[in-house]
């Protein structure tokens, strides 16, 4: 398909959109402040003699900045992993959940939430770290089982992996159901909120692992862009084009398990971004991964930041779950493009 808009135009729009999203995320919140305050805080940190209100400085540096960084990294990495999975499965509707990483992370988190509560509550200063670690470990564990089940005679059979992923997701779902049965009311609500995702409570100390992994995905995935293009032809065709397909598949699975695992561990389940952002970008730019990968990263980060701005403003001083908003913003736009695409075809 001929791109609807020129590639350069789309990238300029995406980059401006991300800049806008970042500045909105830094300057909007329940505490009202002027739009230039974040920049004044930044400049004063850089040594310029600007007058900055201490409370505004605290809110921007300790609350909004880590939150913005978390949204950037999580949104970008979820979209990138979506691209990787849609390429691996050669299916534009594939989702990172297919290889079991989300269900494994959900199971890890549920275990920690419910059993933690059952053991009389975890030490509050440790519980966020334990929860993240448990979710991350759960995601990696289930994905590695799915991967092992998909291996046949040294090759990874993607179709078998898909089925193994479905079966293990069902199994994880059953175990989560069992944990929910064991849980009390309050613990159930904690689980529910975790499942809807949130950037709330972001702190620098819990941000670094995700930032590091996001950087790794961001650097690694574009190097596989051409190989991913070839993979869309089919595995044997890709091999005939000189692609080491088994290595590529291992790489995609590993990056996705790390990326989605870390994102989910840091901010709970945020659906939709990984599924729809790459799909949207493909509708705009075509399936070439050399443009699809950077575009999805920019769009995923922007979508998550904008959803988070809404999440904190809509019901302030309380907060909406961000998973609700990513779907509320993304789904209608997605439908619009689908209908529009159909009338074009």
């Amino acid at each position: 398909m001929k791109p609807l808009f020129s590639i350069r135009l789309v990238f300029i729009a995406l980059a401006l959109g991300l800049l806008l999203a970042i500045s909105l995320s830094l300057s909007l919140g329940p505490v009202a402040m002027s739009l230039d305050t974040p920049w004044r805080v930044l400049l004063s940190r850089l040594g310029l003699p600007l007058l900055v209100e201490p409370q505004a400085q605290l809110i921007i540096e300790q609350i909004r900045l880590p939150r913005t960084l978390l949204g950037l990294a999580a949104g970008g990495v979820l979209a990138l992993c979506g691209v990787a999975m849609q390429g691996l499965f050669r299916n534009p509707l594939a989702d990172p959940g297919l290889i079991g990483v989300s269900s494994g992370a959900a199971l890890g988190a549920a275990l920690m939430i419910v059993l933690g509560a059952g053991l009389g509550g975890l030490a509050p200063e440790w519980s966020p770290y334990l929860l993240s670690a448990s979710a991350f470990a759960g995601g990696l564990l289930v994905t590695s089982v799915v991967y092992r089940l998909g291996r046949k005679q040294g090759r990874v059979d993607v179709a078998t992996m898909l089925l193994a992923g479905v079966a293990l997701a069902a199994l994880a779902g059953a175990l989560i159901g069992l944990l929910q049965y064991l849980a009390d009311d309050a613990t159930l609500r904690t689980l529910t909120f975790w499942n809807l995702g949130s950037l709330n409570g972001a702190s620098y100390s819990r941000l670094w692992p995700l930032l590091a992994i996001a950087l790794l995905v961001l650097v690694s995935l574009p190097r596989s862009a051409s190989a991913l293009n070839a993979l869309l032809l089919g595995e044997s065709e890709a091999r005939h084009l000189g692609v080491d397909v088994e290595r590529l598949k291992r790489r995609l699975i590993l990056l996705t398990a790390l990326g989605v695992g870390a994102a989910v561990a840091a901010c709970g389940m945020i659906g939709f971004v990984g599924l729809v952002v790459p799909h949207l970008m493909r509708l705009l730019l075509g399936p070439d991964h050399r443009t699809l990968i950077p575009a999805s990263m920019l769009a995923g980060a922007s979508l998550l930041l904008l959803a988070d701005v809404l999440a904190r403003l809509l019901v302030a001083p309380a907060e909406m779950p961000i998973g609700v908003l990513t779907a509320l913003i993304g789904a209608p736009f997605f439908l619009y493009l689908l209908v529009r695409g159909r009338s074009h075809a």
Partner: protein
Amino acid sequence: MLKCDNLHVQRGGKTILAGINLTLQDGEVLAVLGPNGAGKSTLLAALSGELLPSLGQVLFADKPLAAWLGSERAQRLAVLPQQSSLNFAFVVDEVVGLGRLPHASGRQRDSEIIGLALEAADAAHLRGRNYVELSGGERQRVHLARVLAQLWPGQGGQVLLLDEPTSMLDPLHQLATLKAVRAFAGQGAGVLVILHDLNLAARFADRIALLHQGGLHAIGTPDEVLTEGNLQTVFNLPVIMSRHPELGCPWVIPR
């Protein structure tokens, strides 16, 4: 160039190919004929390294196929599968451009080659079109252009393996495609092509390999292989052998 010795291939415990000896020379077009289930596609899969022989081996430029580095092999060996499952909305140029992946020849040179390969496959008018909006025959020609681009411009030491490249084409484009293949072999590459149309094989192939029940029944020039006896045995098809009135090549007329 591409050579197999005593090739045996098993699939699911069943022997599909047994004792195949075959050598594909530079610059020749070798057509592989045989009824459904004779093992034609399995032979192509074994020759391209997709299936491992249970016995015997495949040598490419005197080196076992498996010993080749993926990208180096891809610069010299291209494979066109019977059907493509590609279902992403690439522009035609991008699909053909995928053939340039093993080469680092630069964007400009690639673009030139994409144009030339599309022209060779009689698909130049499809440039800029959305791949998923093409008909089956048009897609087949685009993929032919892709494998041509992979080896472009074609030279000795290269091998092109084609699995029924004309299956979805109208008669005019069947001819055009095989002419393009013939011309490509003229640049030096060896071409092995699976065909169903006996007369197309008779007209365009230098040699014909006739597969029967997993074995090589006959191999040689069209005149040697396309005999009433061979075709009766292999296809269970009674035929009258004649000659093309203008070109003089063998002409098969089913009774």
